[in-house]
């Protein structure tokens, strides 16, 4: 009988990523509801000492899979290790982050275990001892609440920056277990040959707590430095609407919207963005939306918590000065 909840932690260059702590926190809440143990699975190289970082947030044990072939994520190595261990220990629920890595791993893992994934979930609950997941569809224009049939392994990925972190507590005790697996080099077909780090040092849009975004009203690529000053001050990541990306002013990786990134920050400041429904689909779950636009009829004002009718080239520099005063 399948038992226990697993969370698959994510690390990059040996540092555990924040989504892992969000998974432990939510995993703990689920584990307590169904009275089953919570296990974090940590894959990496020379990674064992990091297990305690996960332990602080409330796991019962950490399975450490340590191998130099696990230092950097590859689909082949990670799906092999996790599926081997899952087939042996039969967890009832496996949670991963809905990060790039998590979403890449979840599908292949599910196929190997003959199940599927509640991908990019924003809410979990338990009914009849089974996981119920709520997830956005149509880029958040609707939500689907789904559950798993029969005794299939329940795999889900959790959207970053949505689930509340528990209070970290150094005194929490947990066991460390050495993961048992075998990796055959011939199975490892994909190779990471380079990692190109973006210079900004800011959080990725999908994980950012604050975003300042510019649209058609920015009038050109050189004007984004106006947003940079505010963004640097409040540690926000700069985003863009589709208009700005299609005009070639900003890279596609900056696009927020239905065919770009879906974001869930605490604060979203939309500058010179009219508010097309596809853009709203990408940022509609922001906790607070601020809109600055010259056009008082801009649709975005219907969805903003605070609206400023004005020229962003006057308002944003003024806002930067005013924010310096309150911070």
């Amino acid at each position, binding site marked *: 009988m399948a038992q226990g909840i697993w969370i698959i932690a994510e690390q990059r260059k040996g540092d555990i990523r924040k989504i892992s702590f969000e998974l432990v926190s939510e995993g703990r809440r689920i584990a307590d509801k169904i009275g089953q143990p919570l296990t974090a699975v940590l894959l990496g190289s020379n990674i064992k000492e990091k297990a305690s970082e996960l332990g602080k947030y409330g796991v019962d044990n950490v399975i450490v899979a340590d191998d130099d072939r696990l230092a950097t994520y590859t689909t082949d190595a990670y799906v092999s290790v996790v599926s081997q261990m899952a087939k042996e220990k039969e967890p009832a629920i496996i949670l991963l982050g809905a990060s790039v890595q998590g979403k890449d791993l979840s599908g292949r893992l599910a196929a190997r275990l003959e199940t599927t994934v509640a991908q990019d979930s924003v809410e979990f609950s338990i009914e009849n001892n089974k996981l119920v997941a709520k997830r*956005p569809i149509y880029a958040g224009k609707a939500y689907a609440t789904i559950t798993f049939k029969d005794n299939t392994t329940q795999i889900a990925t959790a959207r970053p920056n949505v689930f509340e972190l528990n209070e970290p507590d150094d005194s929490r005790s947990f066991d460390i277990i050495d993961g048992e697996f075998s990796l055959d080099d011939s199975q490892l077909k*994909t190779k990471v040959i380079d990692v190109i780090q973006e210079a900004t040092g800011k959080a*990725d849009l999908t994980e950012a707590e604050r975003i300042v975004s510019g649209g058609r009203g920015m009038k050109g690529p050189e004007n984004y430095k106006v947003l940079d000053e505010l963004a640097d001050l409040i540690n926000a990541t700069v985003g863009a609407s589709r208009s700005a990306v299609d005009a070639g002013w900003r890279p596609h990786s900056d696009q927020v919207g239905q065919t770009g990134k879906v974001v869930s920050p605490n604060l979203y400041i939309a500058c010179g963005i009219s508010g097309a429904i596809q853009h709203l689909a990408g940022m509609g779950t922001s906790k607070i939306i601020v809109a600055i636009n010259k056009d008082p009829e801009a649709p975005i004002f219907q969805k903003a918590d605070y609206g400023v009718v004005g020229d962003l080239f006057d308002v944003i520099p003024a806002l930067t000065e005013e924010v310096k005063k309150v911070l």
Partner: protein
Amino acid sequence: MNIIVCLKQVPDTETQISIAADGKSISTDNIKWVMNPYDEYAVEEALQIREKFGGEVTIVGVGPKRVTESIRTALAMGADKGILVDDPAIAGGDSLGTARVLNAVIKDLDYDIILCGKQGVDDDYGIVGSMLAEFLDIPQISIAVKLDISEDGSKVTVNREVEGGTFVIEAPLPALVTAQKGLNEPRYASLPGIMKAKKKPLDVKTIADLGLDAGSVGEAGAKIEIKEITLPKPRQAGKMVEGETPQEKAANLAKFLHEEAKVL
């Protein structure tokens, strides 16, 4: 080089989504169906690979009948032939079921590379590609923003967008790659292309043709069930920030964000 592209149809992104009477699905009245936007990048990349290496581009779609139009669009863009799987047993399936159907079609074909869009903009799962790669036992690379095949056609190198940067990943062919926006600029189907497409082969297959058990696909083979589909709580308009000058408005806004919203 034999290139396969998997595509699907989705409602046009302008569509206002409404819930069907049963509360468990989207209403399909008045929907304009289009090729999934991410699949366009997959089709375009396939055509560019064929331009470089020669060979054939095959489009594979899974029912219903209207998906034929999107396959024809891909043929009009320049693909060589299409296969549609249309069978009532497929209805109500999940990603696993779709991957099983695609696997049944593709496993007996010759292919060097399979391209898919990174996700369908309807259900936003983004896992059919990886599941298909698993069933075919080939490597996968998802979210490609750049793709190069080596001169000797033996391997593919992909730039893959990750948080805060890019991974450059190499895999031997055959492999499956999922396409991200920015991979290329999809071409428009030309009028001569549209005319030619009408004559290109488009086979329609059933589950029985593929030797698939109806219990392994569609609602019968699904691992998840939908309890309900809901609309998000509508966001109400908040307040317009007053002020005689931009500076005054900015000052009031900063105050609201700090004291009232407490986000700064």
